[in-house]
């Protein structure tokens, strides 16, 4: 028997596969022949199967391509961080389960660091949850506090997981774009701002939360106190939660200061602040993150956590705790890694910007984070003959990967449906790369410039 196949090419729609069922299968079990069709996925994940990374992380496996796409550091984590993991791994009991909501020495270290930053008491047992990366914190927060009937405001462009996570929780994403200031020279991420009246219009009685990401991925914007105050005022006025993704909190460049919205008046009790070991210490493969907030909110995240994965790995948490203590003790010292890493990255940022400018591009210089976006329309690469209906930036990146051996990420992946066209000439580069990677990118870009001439 042959079941007909239906293949639907649009992204995000499940494809049905060709099923060939051999007659020799036992007739007694013929019911199982139709099994694949009856056992569809649940409603909550309908349409959430596709994802920009599935395509573009495969690129990382090809060593001939200079990969400035996925946010993957190829620089080494600091030696003491690796040493702490080696030390922790050698202790027998640190290879067994630890406390579910966070390894005791880790939550203690986190509470100390953030008490100093926030200027308020943080209880390590009730105000902190350790999660599998900042990603896991976003998931725990959204599952704990967001449900069907809720609206969640997402600022575009956005780290792409916000939208599917909000949808998986049954809620409706409400988008608002960063727009570049009229009269701004669009050379800096500071020129990308929210329109206060437009933002206010997005809040209503159904608005459960707004997701804030500062420093911002992909633009690199570091929200100012005034900008945060506008958001805070609306949160308080509408009794809304704030989910503040601050994974790049330490990566701010000269002239900028990272401000935690949770420290603004009236905001501590309605804000979950998310952090990441991966971004703090260049150890994305440790997948450790944390949520910090008031007990009455964190307790719900803890309930989600105890019903999803229960505990995070022990040796990694112990190593992270020790690394945090080392840096906590020198938080007033410029040698602290929290300040040394952004200093290192600032010169990479400036180099990346220069390389792009030499090809005739105008990159948006980020105030923070390790990404840089650039409008590629001035290169005038004609891709109109390329078949698929995908946005220009997707086609451009695929073309750039195959013809220039350089990868980036298309910005429309970070936009809601109505804003995709606003950003479909932008691509995102990641510059947390070692010098030899940036050297290789320089060669490609210089050749590109020559070919253009």
């Amino acid at each position, binding site marked *: 028997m042959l079941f007909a196949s239906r293949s639907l090419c649009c992204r995000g729609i499940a494809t049905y596969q060709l099923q060939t069922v051999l007659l020799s299968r036992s007739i007694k*079990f013929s*019911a199982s022949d139709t099994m694949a069709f009856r056992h569809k996925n649940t409603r909550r994940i309908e349409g959430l199967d596709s994802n920009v990374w599935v395509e573009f992380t495969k690129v990382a496996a090809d060593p001939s391509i200079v990969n400035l796409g996925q946010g993957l550091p190829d620089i080494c984590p600091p030696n003491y961080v690796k040493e702490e993991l080696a030390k922790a791994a050698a202790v027998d009991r640190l290879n*067994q389960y630890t406390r579910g909501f966070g390894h005791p020495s880790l939550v203690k270290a986190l509470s100390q660091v953030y008490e100093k930053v926030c200027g308020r008491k943080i209880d390590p047992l009730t105000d902190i949850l350790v999660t599998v990366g900042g990603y896991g914190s976003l998931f725990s927060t959204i599952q704990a506090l967001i449900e069907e009937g809720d609206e969640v405001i997402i600022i575009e462009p956005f780290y792409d997981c916000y939208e599917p996570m909000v949808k998986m929780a049954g809620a409706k994403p409400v988008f608002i774009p960063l727009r570049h200031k009229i009269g701004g020279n669009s050379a800096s991420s500071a020129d990308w701002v929210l329109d206060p009246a437009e933002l206010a219009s997005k809040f209503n009685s159904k608005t459960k939360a707004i997701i804030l990401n500062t420093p911002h991925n992909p633009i690199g914007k570091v929200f100012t106190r005034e900008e945060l105050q506008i958001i805070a005022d609306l949160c308080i006025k509408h009794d809304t939660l704030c989910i503040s993704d601050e994974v790049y909190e330490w990566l701010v460049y000269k002239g900028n200061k990272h401000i935690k919205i949770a420290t603004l008046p009236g905001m501590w009790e309605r804000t979950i602040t998310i952090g990441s070991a991966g971004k703090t210490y260049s150890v*994305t493969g440790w997948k450790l993150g944390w949520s910090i907030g008031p007990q009455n909110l964190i307790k719900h995240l803890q*309930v989600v956590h105890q019903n999803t*994965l229960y*505990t995070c790995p022990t*040796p990694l948490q112990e190593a992270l705790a020790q690394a945090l203590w080392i840096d906590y003790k020198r938080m007033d010292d410029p040698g602290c890694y929290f300040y040394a890493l952004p200093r290192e990255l600032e010169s990479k940022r400036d180099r990346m910007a220069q390389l792009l400018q030499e090809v005739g591009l105008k990159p948006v210089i980020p105030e923070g984070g390790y990404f840089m976006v650039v409008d590629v329309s001035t290169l005038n690469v004609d891709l109109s003959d390329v078949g698929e209906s995908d946005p220009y930036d997707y086609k451009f990146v695929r073309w750039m990967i195959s013809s220039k051996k350089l990868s980036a990420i298309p910005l429309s992946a970070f936009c809601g449906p109505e804003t995709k066209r606003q950003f479909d000439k932008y691509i995102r580069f990641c510059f947390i790369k070692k010098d030899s990677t940036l050297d290789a990118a320089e060669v490609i870009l210089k050749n590109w410039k020559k070919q253009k001439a």
Partner: protein
Amino acid sequence: LPVKPPSSPSFSLQAKMSRLAQARRLEGVDKNIWVDFVKLAATYSKVNLGQGFPDFPPPDFLMEAFGRAVSGEMHMLHQYTRAFGHPPLVKILAQLFGKLLGRGLDPMTNVMVTVGAYQALFCCFQAFIDEGDEVIIIEPFFDCYEPMVKMAGGTPVYVPLRPKAPKEGKLMLSADWQLDPAELASKFSERTKAIVLNSPNNPLGKVFSREELELIADLCVKHDTLCFSDEVYEWLVYDGKEHIRIASLPGMWDRTVTIGSAGKTFSVTGWKVGWTVGPNELLQHLRTVHQNSVYHCATAAQEAVAQGFQRELEHYGKPDSYFVRLPRELQQKRDQLVQSLVAVGMKPIVPEGTYFLVADISKFKSEVPDVPNSDEPYDSRFAKWMVKNKGLAAIPLSAFYCGAHKDNYNSFIRFCFAKEDATLKAADNILQKWKLEKTAP
């Protein structure tokens, strides 16, 4: 940090987060037995046979692999790996489970790595259980199945393993706890989306026989039901018993997700590396949940586990294979604990598998008076009393039953025997002393 008061006089009222914050999906899933019992053990226990984790070290070859992964030349092991599983790990899992299930497996589509078997279970329920779906859970059950089904909006339907009286003069065996076939069949309805199977079973240690699995398989096929098969203790089977994988039975591959755990396989519960094995038609949906919840699992531990499996494949079936050594050692510890318990008058149910053992503490009930109309099951109060007064931690069996059935078997507690001999000896000392105190006039 001085707070500048804003101008509005009603600010302090406005500022407060007044509306109900939490989502309805958390209703009824907030309680968790481990939060209490882990805390009690940490505070009071001198000998902890409660939570299931080994107190002996993981095998040397695995620790060496982890050491190499974290301090070696490959510094990219500190960065993201492939989201659905580190390539060396999924490749070796596909190789091993292909061999065990008798079919060719594609590492990219038939295997997915998760943050422990716990997260694998979560992905299964989130991927397949919608509001109104029923999920059959066999009691006693690893406690997370119930809240996970509920959080997915599903309805748990319970069916108990019922103890048959042991042979005259013999100890009860985990094999004596059985499903009633007619009762099991009666639990399947057109709303039944899945059954959760756990073999070897935590807490009883039961290893389902081929006949028992065929019974379940026939019903799954008849009712077109999925099977989530939690096989984390697959290597821990004793007395020459065989662990049979339900996915290998006719008609079952297409409808089964098989779940495994590095924590239990290699005695590294703190690494939180687990996996699912199954057909692409099912795993594709687990991947969707995974990519929208944690996305990546930590890299270095996956690399080390891959090397561990590589070593085990090379030594498969040989006496120095960890999969041979570990169950042999644990069987001895099981027997040691059985002896200890018999000697003091607790009646152990001898487990065929896992590193858990359930014992009847009826003879010790006089120590803890019954409190009629108490909300808390008797065995829970007993276990709490025991850890506080005797320093010996164990878990009440009621933890593994749904709310309505918690009082059905209220004089049993679960011990974990994946412990150093010294720990088991210390437990024996506590028990012997206790017996003497009980019988002294």
